[in-house]
């Protein structure tokens, strides 16, 4: 399996599609309501980095469950069908 590097998501996805194990080389996930195709094995930490997001300032909900352990983001590989919500604080009353 092609392992995604720390390069941009699109480049990593291309690299993943060129892998030898066909169907399993990508995962389809939904991030903040948007469908995304990611290289199989991409971790949550890599996804955040690809969007220039500081993990300390973002809360991640995966399939309706809040991920409390930010240290685990680096080892959490996203799975096909995952629904992610990435939220943060904005101005409000």
């Amino acid at each position: 399996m092609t392992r995604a590097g720390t390069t941009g998501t699109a480049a990593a996805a291309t690299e993943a599609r060129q892998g030898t194990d066909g169907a399993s080389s990508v995962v389809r996930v939904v991030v903040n309501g948007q469908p995304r195709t990611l290289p199989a094995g991409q971790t949550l930490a890599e996804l955040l980095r690809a969007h220039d997001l500081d993990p300390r300032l973002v809360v991640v909900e995966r399939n309706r469950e809040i991920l409390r352990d930010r240290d685990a983001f680096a080892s959490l590989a996203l799975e096909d069908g995952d629904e992610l919500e990435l939220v943060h604080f904005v101005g409000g009353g």
Partner: protein
Amino acid sequence: MATTIKVTTPEALDLPFTVAGRAFRSRLMVGTGKYASNEQMVRAIEASGAEVVTVAVRRVDLDRTKEEGILYHLDPKRFFLLANTAGCFTADEAVRYARLGREAGFNDFVKLEVIADRETLLPDPAGTIEATRVLAAEGFKVMAYTNDDLITALRLEDAGASAVMPLAAPIGSGLGLVNPYNVRTIKHRLSAPIVVDAGLGTASDVALAMEQGVDAVLLNTALSSAEDPSRMALAMRHAVEAGRLAYLAGRMPKREIAVPSSPTSGMLGG
């Protein structure tokens, strides 16, 4: 011999504003929404002297390269960030937002809002009570936004609210305290701290609200939509202190007859 004049400050004449055991130096809480710029927001908040600052929980914008989160502009060590559940229309949705806010934030306080009507933004009493019960059981310190109805306020206190926040008028309306009697009654009947939230427009509104004996007020649009938010923030800071001190001082009774302030005796002979 000159008399020594003792200078007193509002802090020396009053107890701190306390919610769920946490004491705050200011009785003015402010929101962070709808400012023309983040710089304008920060200046207004600093002028207000507020310690508690409300924020909303929203999706990050994945298409933006520049980070727009509020934590890039407000130092969480200087301000007590109070996450709200604004925009939620059901108890379940508000509970979900509260949990995300607690995870994003720095405390287990939440400003709970469950809205019932998109036009008036009036709160849903049943949904707010239900969400209060769930969140209080999870250890949240719930500050519950509600209408100015005594019975709903009592039910929220029973459900475990750490503070009850009746509106002065609809959110963003600036109409001022439309029913001082209701707010005063809520303050008399509940033990939980009472914060007037929403609808206050200018300094006299804030002073009038504080004169009812409530513990604090929360403002957003009154500052962000003022022509000069920083100057209005300073006015509101003084209004909170003035109204609070007037309440503590105890106003004179109202009379519908004139009573002279100068002696009636000692007048010159005709």
